[in-house]
């Protein structure tokens, strides 16, 4: 049995985000991190490994430096890592990204008692679409927004969050699950883990390695295989600064209340 965790390297959008004058992102000025939800996905897999001794495999698609993130995952306790990286994969939207990741996961191999785990959403593209799209392409049942995962033999039970409550959903392996941050608290790398990480296998899948998969075709991957196109990107203007009222006493509040009344806001 193994668990395949799909993890993405992302710019840290929680700090300062620099945007170039032409509306594109100044990625060079930003730190990269492992996508936060994917840390929860990895932790969920490592928990099951702690209980069952199964194998944990991490996979990513991205430029070569993303291998550094995979080493960190190996240091946390993953056993093997794969990076799909090729010029042909660049410019992929979620359809094409999931096509490539599904092909990579096919190459790793999904067996009867395996589980694929993704984060719910990446903090850069922010779409939450890649997980379900991988599931469709691998013909796996999907359960998204997982806040709790229970495994009993080949039966998986997940608490799937809704805005107004939750659902309990049952399925059999193999299946795909997407995780939210409420699921767990990711562990840290251990010193021995960091040491061992460098002797664990990290494999690169280039275009050649994946091209025989039926999912891989010029019309389904990369820019030419992406159904969506970005017409334009831009930054929103700052809303015109309003009025700073003078003082902070009752008179200030009365003034504000009378403005609101005049403008029929209250």
């Amino acid at each position, binding site marked *: 049995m193994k668990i395949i965790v799909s993890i993405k390297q992302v710019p840290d959008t929680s700090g300062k985000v620099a945007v170039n004058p032409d509306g594109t*992102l100044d990625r060079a000025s930003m730190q990269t991190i492992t996508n936060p939800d994917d840390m929860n996905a990895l932790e969920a897999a490592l928990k099951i490994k702690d209980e069952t001794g199964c194998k944990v495999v991490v996979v990513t698609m991205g430029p070569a430096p993303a291998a550094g993130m995979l080493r960190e995952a190996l240091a946390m306790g993953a056993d093997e890592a794969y990076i799909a990286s090729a010029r042909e994969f660049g410019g992929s939207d979620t359809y094409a990204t999931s096509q490539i990741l599904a092909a990579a996961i096919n190459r790793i191999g999904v067996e009867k008692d395996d589980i694929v785990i993704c984060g719910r959403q990446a*903090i850069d593209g922010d779409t939450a679409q890649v997980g379900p799209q991988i599931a469709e392409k691998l013909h796996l049942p999907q359960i998204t927004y997982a806040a709790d995962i229970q495994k009993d033999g080949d039966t998986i039970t997940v608490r799937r969050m809704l805005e107004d409550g939750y659902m309990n959903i049952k399925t059999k392996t193999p299946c795909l699950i997407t995780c939210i941050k409420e699921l767990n608290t990711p562990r840290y790398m251990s010193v021995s883990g960091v040491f061992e990480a460098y002797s664990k296998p990290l494999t690169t899948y280039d275009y050649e390695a994946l091209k025989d998969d039926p999912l891989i075709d010029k019309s389904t991957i990369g820019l030419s295989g992406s159904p969506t196109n970005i017409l334009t990107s*831009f930054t929103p203007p700052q809303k015109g600064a309003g009025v700073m009222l003078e003082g902070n006493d009752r008179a200030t509040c009365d003034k504000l209340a009378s403005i609101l009344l005049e403008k029929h806001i209250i």
Partner: protein
Amino acid sequence: MNSNFNSSDIGAFKDVWVFCEQREGKLMPTDFELISKGRDLANELGVNLCGILLGDDVDGIAKELGGYGADKVYVCNHPLLKVYNTDGYAKVICDVIADLKPEAFLIGATNIGRDLGPRCAARLHTGLCADCTHLDIDMVNYKEFLKQASTLPADRIEKLDTAVVLGQKHDVSRDLKMTRPAFGGHLMASIICPRFRPCMATVRPGVMKKNAFDQAKADACEIVHPAFELNESDFQTEVTEVVKAAKKLVDLIGADYIVSVGRGISKDVEGGIKLAEELAAELGGVVGGSRATIDSGWLSADHQVGQTGKTVHPKVYIALGISGAIQHKAGMQDSECIIAVNKNDTAPIFEIADYGICGDLFKVTPMLTEAIRAAKASK
């Protein structure tokens, strides 16, 4: 799914459809928002606007959608569709789409819509734009929107009539232009899906304005039952239980007045929330909060405003002790009037506030409640 279906045969597709989500036999508020927006888009394209509603015996709720602008509602009834399940819903929707070929397909970006949308788009081999906050067909409207909502120079906006798609010039005037925030709201992007149909979008709840309900239109709305097949064997997952949150959730999205608190209440959390409640009660509104207040366990998650919470545009949004992080602004900056109270005069919230008061919220809030009460009494 119809084996002749070809998503790149653009000319074969017509009409705008909205996936109308029901939970426990009740339509969701997003359904009315999307039907209202879909009506505009259908008018601009000169086509019909149709809802598609899945459930068990849900004909009775379908006509209401007509009152907000649907010409027609496709209703798919089946006991296995009573509760949302990815397998059943994706199968029926893809099968019906493959038969009837809508050109655009809108889905509310609820936890259910964001599960269903990508599964269907992958199966249909088409594009899906995530969590949109603005939709346009008409180029004049679209450019006008960009002039207001972007920092793009006018000459760049003027050049957006065509895009380069696979090395060819492509006229975007009949494409749905789907605008969405990414990178945590730091960047906006307009997405098109020029080569495949249906063009699909999930749309953020609470963003599109709902039309006024029109009973005559509801009466005239046509109910159609499209053919579909569904069997137990189509299901790989089973929903064993649906549990509703015990407490009544706060309805931020529908509220005209929201008083939100942030970490600024930390020295007296209960007192701070009470002051906010009193101010909200005076205005006839509700209390919300920044993520800091949710993460600290002071308010439940349904109160959260922002990128990972609710998007709101009330008449008045009052921020008490909230710094104004971009992720918070993403959920409230389109409020009609923003009032901020913060003891730090350089807090970023003041950059978007219409009226700012620099002071201690514990002192200012009760005075503001009193002042508003007095002002209303003088009316």
